[in-house]
């Protein structure tokens, strides 16, 4: 057999997994349906001369240790900017930089609260962090290593001390709205922190579990280093290009334009894959970077699975609520009151918690936000190579846009584009006049382009019932699946999405353990 392992999908997790497997001596083949590697971390043209990070647009969760370990710098990864500031945009023309000092100038109480609050949450995140980097323990039928894993996590939480442990247990099941209301007074601060709690998720700040996602985001960020927000030179594609280069250097073979039609099974064990063109490639281990639904229901086929398991996969909640807006601009956008450093950073349109909740409300009924919340970057400020000289790219995450838009996205897309631009223009007057080209990706488009069910970045909602030991579902939560030789390594597995790579590395660890 020519290959030990076949990885289906060259997203960042697939590539991370390939790197670690190859470094342990496995002969690895990565198959990618698209004509380039990268999955949802790519840079591509969207208008003549204009390039953009088409899905994820900032790097803030990939551990520094991983970047070093895989020597991504030597393989071409560099940063146009690091330690990017975040500004909460305000209608009064005074954007608020999110740090204790700047907040204190606006509201003394909030300035005093901000430091201890983020510090405490950081501490909680740090306590939960080891959980992100481990293979989740099994609850039933577990062995000693599973029990040890639980004990370790319990110890981490216990060692916070009595006061902090109680506080963690108190807030863990709360919603972000209630938590932020009791901590802060200014709408802008609460809105910005609330936005982080719901970004990329299918719920609003008042929904249960939104403190969990806030902690998740902070834990992932704290893993990546002290100053997490960074912008790779050349866009997010540079990260996956470097991962691919590192993988190739380690002996991994990567084929693009090679769509896997089906995972082959013989005698209840994976025997390789069948490509869309009918070609059969054999390998004893197949690792899927695709989301769980695609992996099990489309690539594997339910005839190899038990009904109860299929039922759980079928019930997996995976409806994206985030759209992407790309603008090609003739000249830099002018956000009132924002300096050049600020413009090069992360900008939030989430002026209050109520604004967020109101933006979320219509999605329950298949409608889009009247006034969406946004995360905006202008990557050309730090990286002019992405646009013709003097011209700029604006990339924004637009929340909320339901996967199943009631009237259909053919009708809804122009309205969504218009509302998103209108929401930005409220803070950047004259924006519309500078627009040369527009691209909007609805969750439906994101699903189609990146092959993610429901257009959901996390390959499945991050919520208590789909988290940690039960992510994506019991029976597949340790990267293993019911079919021997088939593994998962994508965002649908613990710890989830975001360009983090932890799922890929944990999966590799599990595969190597299995073989040993």
């Amino acid at each position, binding site marked *: 057999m020519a290959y030990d392992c076949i990885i289906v999908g060259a997203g960042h997790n697939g590539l991370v997994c390939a790197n670690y497997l190859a470094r342990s001596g496995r002969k690895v083949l990565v198959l990618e349906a698209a004509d380039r590697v990268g999955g949802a971390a790519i840079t591509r043209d969207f208008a003549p001369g204009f390039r953009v990070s088409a899905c994820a647009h900032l790097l803030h969760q990939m551990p520094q240790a991983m970047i070093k370990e895989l020597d991504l710098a030597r393989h071409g990864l560099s940063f146009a900017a690091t330690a990017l500031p975040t500004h909460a945009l305000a209608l009064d023309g005074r954007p608020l930089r999110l740090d204790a000092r700047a907040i204190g100038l606006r509201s003394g109480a909030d300035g005093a609260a901000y430091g201890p609050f983020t510090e405490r949450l950081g501490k909680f995140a740090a306590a939960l962090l080891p959980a992100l980097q481990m293979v989740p323990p099994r609850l039933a039928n577990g062995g000693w290593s599973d029990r040890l894993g639980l004990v370790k996590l319990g110890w981490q939480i216990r060692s916070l001390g009595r006061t902090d442990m109680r506080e963690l247990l108190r807030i863990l099941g709360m919603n972000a709205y209630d938590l932020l209301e009791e901590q802060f007074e200014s709408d802008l601060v609460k809105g910005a922190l609330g936005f982080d709690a719901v970004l990329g998720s299918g719920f609003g700040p008042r929904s249960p579990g939104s403190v969990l996602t806030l902690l998740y985001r902070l834990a992932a960020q704290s893993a990546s280093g002290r100053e997490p927000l960074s912008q790779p030179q050349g866009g997010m594609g540079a990260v996956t290009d470097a991962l691919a280069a590192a993988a190739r250097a380690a002996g991994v073979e990567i084929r693009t334009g090679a769509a896997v039609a089906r995972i082959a099974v013989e005698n*209840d064990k994976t025997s390789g894959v069948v490509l869309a063109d009918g070609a059969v490639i054999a390998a004893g281990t197949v690792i899927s970077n695709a989301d769980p639904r695609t992996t099990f229901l489309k690539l594997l086929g*339910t005839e190899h699975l038990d*009904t109860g398991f299929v*039922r759980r996969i079928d019930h997996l909640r995976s409806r994206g609520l985030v759209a992407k807006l790309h603008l090609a601009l003739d000249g830099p956008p002018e956000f009132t009151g924002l300096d050049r450093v600020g413009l090069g950073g992360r900008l939030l349109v989430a002026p209050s918690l109520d604004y967020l909740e109101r933006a979320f409300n219509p999605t329950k009924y298949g409608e889009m936000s009247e006034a969406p919340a946004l995360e905006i970057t202008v990557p050309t400020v730090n990286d002019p190579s992405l646009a013709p000289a003097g011209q700029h790219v604006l990339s924004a995450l637009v929340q909320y846009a339901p996967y199943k838009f009631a009237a259909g996205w053919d009708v809804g897309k122009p309205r969504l584009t218009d509302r998103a631009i209108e929401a930005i223009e409220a803070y950047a007057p004259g924006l519309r006049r500078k627009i040369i080209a527009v691209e909007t990706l609805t969750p439906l488009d994101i699903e189609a382009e990146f092959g993610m069910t429901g257009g959901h970045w996390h390959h499945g909602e991050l919520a208590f019932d789909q988290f940690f030991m039960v992510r994506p579902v019991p029976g597949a939560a340790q990267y293993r699946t019911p079919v021997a030789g088939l593994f998962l390594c994508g965002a649908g597995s613990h710890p989830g999405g975001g360009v983090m790579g932890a799922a890929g590395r944990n999966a590799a660890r599990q595969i190597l353990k299995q073989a040993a």
Partner: protein
Amino acid sequence: MQTFANPEPHYRRPLLRTPFAGRAEPFIQTDAYIQWSGYTTVDVFSSVEQEYFAIRNACSVYDLTPMVKYRIAGPEAERYLNRLVTRNIAKLKPGRVAYTVWCNDAGHVIDDGTVFRLGATEFRLCTAERQLDWLLDSAIGFDVEIAEVTETIAALSLQGPTSCAVLKALGLAGVERLKMFDIGRFDLDGMALTVSRTGFTGDLGYELWMDPVQAGAFWDRLMAAGRPHGIRPIGSAALNMARIEAGFLQINVDFVSAEHTIRTGRDRSPFELGLDWLVDLGKGHFNGRRALLAEQARGPRRRLVGLDIEGNKPADHALLYAEKSGKRQIGTVSSALWSPTCKRNLALAMLDAPYFEKGAEIWAEIYLNRELVWERRMVRAHLTDRPFFAPDRRKAVPAGDR
């Protein structure tokens, strides 16, 4: 297909009546009714003994309509069923019936029933309990259509040594040539009648399937044709006696569906139920296969067996022990009967490992109520093969017709 319309609104009569209910009424003397799958059915018409002996010595008619029925059809119906049940459905030819069980992911039995292969791509699944939710979820990823057809098919079970003679008298030419588990289609003066040589009695017998609209008229013809052959409507009580003699399992009596158990350890695998012969581990994947392989490697923890118990007092719900002193409990009786035909004291029982092995010493604790005074007996029980009663006429081809 026409649906049999119940004459009254559902809120007036929450239990359904089968299309034979009106015809059966004149035979009812005891008003002993029981519920079955949402229908009113008869437990005893007049005398359970007479009804039992109709099964064994003449011909019994049992209203089978409440049996839950599903139509499973489509290009992938065979693959679908093969993934659903433990037996190899690819081997089931059109015009044949197979008894089978189906399991959940853990390899525990959800229900038992029969699969009728009506054609290359059309099946009927008869189940003890409602299964639509499980059947539909099992259909994810298969090109197959599933419909509940319980109310659209009326059915009677005709069991006993003269059952073939009755069908011949009715005009079903060639019915005697049906082998066990065969399906035959007959035209009865323009009425389509499907006959399967199946049943729950371990005797010669047939099940008759028809359009509910024609049920009443058919009943009249059947009873007229059967009169010289001793035909008699029977209720569930007599049938239960015959099924214990035949060694057949009854859900909620001998096992509880894995979909309904609450306590751990109450689920039962096909191996534990002594149904190894229904499990084809070599046919490819099916629900519960991986768990069953693991169980096979581990060895069974318990097993359902047949017992022959000394004396003549039925061992209903008896606890079973490894010694006369009753120190170590090793199992329980789930079904028990003094068999009028075998003249043996029979029981179906679940025994812990290793007491289901031949030669184990087993004692049954039997309580007797003697005019409100309870007496306790410890009697020896002996492992014995099932079925307890299996007359040659059950399988004979051509079937006996007198």
